C-alpha cells in the first residue's frame, strides 16, 4: 500500500476545526493519521510554509461534453480543475444532449474515469430535455449517481414544476439548484442594468430579475420543505432574501463566483466579451453585499461557474457572444488575493466554502481530512505570486478576463484518492 507523508504543513480542515502545523499520513486512498512521523517507508512531501487543505471542490463546472467538445472536454476540464487545486468538481447538465437520463449520467462518469484526473460528480437535469415542462426521471438519475438537480443555463421557470421538483427530491434528500432569473426582465440584456449600461446603451439585466426569482424559490422551498441552492448569487437583494430565509430555517444554501466578488460592470466599458456573463457583473454595492454575505455565512460556497467557450464564439459582437467565463484555474488565486489578503475572509472560512460546505450540500463524502476519509488533499503555497497566462491553461478555452493579473496563492500539489495527480 502506497504511503504519503505530508510534513510540516499548516493543516486547515474546517470540517474538524483544525488549523495547526502537523504531519498528515495517507495510506492507500485514505487519510491514515494526523501527526504521524516518517518511518522511511513513505513518499514524503515537504509542506513547510504551505497550507494543507482538504481537496478543493467546485460545485459549478460546465464540462461541455457531450456536444460542445470544441469548448471543453471532460478530459481538459478535469485537467484544468487539477491545475486549479480542485480534487472534485460537480458538472452542470446543460450539455447537448442534456444529462437527463441514466445513460447520460453514466457516460459522464465513464469519461471522467477514463480521463482519470479529478473526481467528477454529476448534477442532472430537473426537467426532461431541460425544457422546464416535465420532471426528469430523478429517481433513476439519483440511482445512477446524480448528486443534485438543476436546469442551469436557464431557470426552472414554471413555479408548479419547481414546487414538484422540491417535493420529489425530498425522497432523496437532494437539493434543487436554480439559476435565478426572471426572463421577461432580461430580454436582450447584455450587462447589469445601471449607470454604466445607461452610458453605453447596452441592454440591461436588472438586479430585480434575480431578486424576484430568489424570493419565489425561497417561498416554494419553505412551503415544501425542499432543499434549495441558489447558484451564482450576484445581488444585494438576493443576499438579503437568503439571510432572512436562513433565519427562518428554510433549507436554502447559496454560492457566489470569484468574478462576482472581484469585477464590476465598469469593466464593460471595454466592450470585451470576456466581461459578459449571466448573471452579469454588478455594481460595487452588490459586490460589497456579496462579500459581507460570504463572511457572515449567508453565502455558503465559492464556485466558479466555469463556462468555457471557444475563442471564435467569444470574438463576436457583444450581443452575439455567449455568456460566461472559465474559472477553474484562477479561482484559488482570486480567493487568496481578493478575499483573504484584504481580510474579508480568514483561511479556514475561505476553505470551508471550497471544501466541506459544497460537500455537505451535494451529500458527498468529501471535503474533510478526517482519519478514514478519502485522501483528497490540496497543498497550497499561500505566498507565491504568479501572473495569469491563459495560453498556459489546461482548459481548452481561454475566455477569461483575468489574463495578465498578478495573483497570490496557487496549488502546488494535488492529491486525489491517495495519488499525486498534479504538482507545480
Amino acid at each position, binding site marked *: 500500500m502506497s504511503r504519503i507523508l505530508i510534513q510540516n504543513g499548516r493543516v486547515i480542515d474546517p470540517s474538524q476545526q483544525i488549523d495547526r502545523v502537523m504531519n498528515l499520513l495517507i495510506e492507500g486512498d485514505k487519510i491514515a493519521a494526523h501527526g504521524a512521523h516518517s518511518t522511511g517507508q513513505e513518499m514524503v512531501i515537504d509542506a513547510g510554509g504551505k497550507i494543507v487543505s482538504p481537496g478543493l471542490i467546485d460545485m459549478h463546472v460546465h464540462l461541455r461534453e457531450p456536444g460542445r467538445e470544441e469548448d471543453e472536454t471532460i478530459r481538459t476540464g478535469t485537467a484544468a480543475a487539477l491545475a486549479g487545486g480542485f480534487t472534485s468538481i460537480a458538472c452542470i447538465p446543460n450539455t447537448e444532449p442534456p444529462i437527463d437520463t441514466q445513460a447520460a449520467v453514466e457516460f459522464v462518469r465513464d469519461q471522467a474515469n477514463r480521463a482519470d484526473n479529478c473526481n467528477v460528480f454529476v448534477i442532472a437535469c430537473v426537467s426532461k430535455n431541460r425544457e422546464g415542462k416535465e420532471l426528469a426521471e430523478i429517481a433513476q438519475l439519483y440511482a445512477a449517481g446524480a448528486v443534485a438537480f438543476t436546469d442551469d443555463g436557464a431557470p426552472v421557470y414554471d413555479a408548479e414544476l419547481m414546487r414538484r421538483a422540491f417535493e420529489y427530491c425530498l425522497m432523496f434528500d437532494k437539493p434543487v439548484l436554480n439559476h435565478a432569473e426572471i426572463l421577461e426582465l432580461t430580454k436582450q440584456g447584455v450587462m447589469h442594468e445601471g449607470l454604466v449600461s445607461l452610458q453605453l*446603451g*447596452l441592454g440591461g439585466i436588472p438586479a430585480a430579475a434575480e431578486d424576484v426569482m430568489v424570493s419565489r424559490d425561497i417561498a416554494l422551498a419553505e412551503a415544501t420543505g425542499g432543499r434549495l441552492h441558489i447558484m451564482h448569487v450576484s445581488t444585494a437583494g438576493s443576499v438579503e432574501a437568503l439571510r432572512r430565509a436562513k433565519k427562518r430555517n428554510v433549507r436554502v444554501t447559496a454560492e457566489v463566483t470569484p468574478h462576482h466578488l472581484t469585477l464590476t460592470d465598469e469593466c464593460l466599458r471595454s466592450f470585451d466579451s470576456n466581461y459578459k456573463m449571466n448573471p452579469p457583473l454588478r455594481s460595487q454595492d452588490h459586490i460589497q453585499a456579496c462579500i459581507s454575505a460570504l463572511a457572515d455565512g449567508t453565502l455558503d460556497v465559492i464556485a466558479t461557474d466555469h463556462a468555457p467557450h471557444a475563442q471564435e464564439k467569444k470574438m463576436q459582437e*457583444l450581443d452575439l457572444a455567449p455568456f460566461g467565463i472559465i474559472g477553474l484555474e484562477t479561482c484559488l488565486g482570486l480567493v487568496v488575493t481578493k478575499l483573504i489578503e484584504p481580510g474579508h475572509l480568514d483561511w479556514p472560512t475561505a476553505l470551508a466554502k471550497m471544501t466541506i460546505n459544497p460537500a455537505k450540500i451535494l451529500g458527498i463524502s468529501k471535503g474533510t481530512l478526517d482519519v478514514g476519509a478519502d485522501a483528497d488533499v490540496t497543498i497550497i503555497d499561500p505566498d507565491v505570486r504568479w501572473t495569469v497566462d491563459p495560453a498556459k491553461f489546461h482548459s481548452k478555452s481561454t475566455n477569461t478576463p483575468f489574463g495578465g493579473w498578478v495573483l497570490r496563492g496557487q496549488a502546488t500539489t494535488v492529491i486525489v484518492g491517495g495519488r499525486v495527480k498534479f504538482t507545480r
Partner: protein
Amino acid sequence: MITDLIDLGPVPDAWKRRHLLGLEDLSAEELTLILDKATIFRKAIDEGHRKIPLLTGKTCVNLFFENSTRTRTSFSLAARRLGADTVDFSAGTSSLSKGETVIDTAKNIEAMGVDLVVVRHRTPGTPHLLSQNLDCSVVNAGDGPHEHPTQGLLDILTIRQRLGRVAGLTVAMVGDIAHSRTARSNIWGLKKLGAHVIVCGPSTLVSPRWQELGVEFSYSLDAILPRVDVLNLLRIQFERQFTRPFPSVREYATLYAMDRQRLAKTKDDILILAPGPINRGVEVTPDVADGAHSAILEQVTNGVAVRMAVLWLLAGRP
C-alpha cells in the same frame, strides 16, 4: 494648392487619433478642432468646391450592418469630395449570411487595401471590436444605442453656426433617450463644450440616473420649453424597443410632439434640430419641422462637412 485655397493647412499635430469611436472620450480641444475644420469644409462647399482632393488614392469602405440611407450617402459624398474611392458594403449582400464573423468580414475587406472603414452596427461596441482587430482607421457611424459621433458633431456644429456658441446654452434632447445613440453623442459633446443638457421624455425612456452624469432630466416638455435654447427632437426608435414604452403614439404626441402651440412658449430664437428621419406628427408637426426655427436641412449639409473633417483628420497625413 487647394489647401491654400480653403485655408486648411496640414493635419494638426494635436490630432493623435487613428479612430473615431465616440465623443465620450474626446477632449474639448479635439471636439473644437473637428468643428473648426468642419467649418472650413462647410465654407468650401458653400463656395461651390465640389472636389477638394486631400484624400486622393485613399479608399474608404462603408461597412453598414444596419440600414441607412442618409448617413451612408453623407459619408460617401464626404469621401468622394475629398477624392477618396468609396465602396459600399451591406450585410444583406455579404458573406455574413454564410456565417462569417464580423471581424473576419472586416479583415477581408481591409486586406483588399483599405484606409478607412466606416462602420454601422446594431450592437454597441462593435466599432471598438473592429478597431482592435484592424490596422486601418475605424469611424463609428452608429453602434446601436451607444454613439453616433458624427451625428453629435454635426448637431453641435449647427448649433454653433446658428447661435454663435455652445458654452452656456441649454440644450434639450427630447424623446427616446434610452435607445438613442444621437442623444448620447450629443450629451458627451455638448457637456464637454460647456452646454447645459436636459434629457426630456416619458419616464420609461428617460432615467433619473442621468443626473449622476451631470445631465438634467425632465418628464415634461412644457415645463422646460421657456428656458431652452435648442431642442433636439429624437426619433422614436420603434425598431429598438422590445416592449412599447408608452401606451400609444397618440398619447406620446400629446405630451412631446413639438407643434405650433408649444413653439409659442419657447424663446424667440429657439433652434430646433432633428437627427432624422423624423416621424412627422409624432416628434414634430410639419409646420414646425419646415418652419424658420428648424435647421433640419442645414444639419444634413453640415453632416457632409463634419464627415469630410473627420475622414481628413484620420487619413489626411501623407
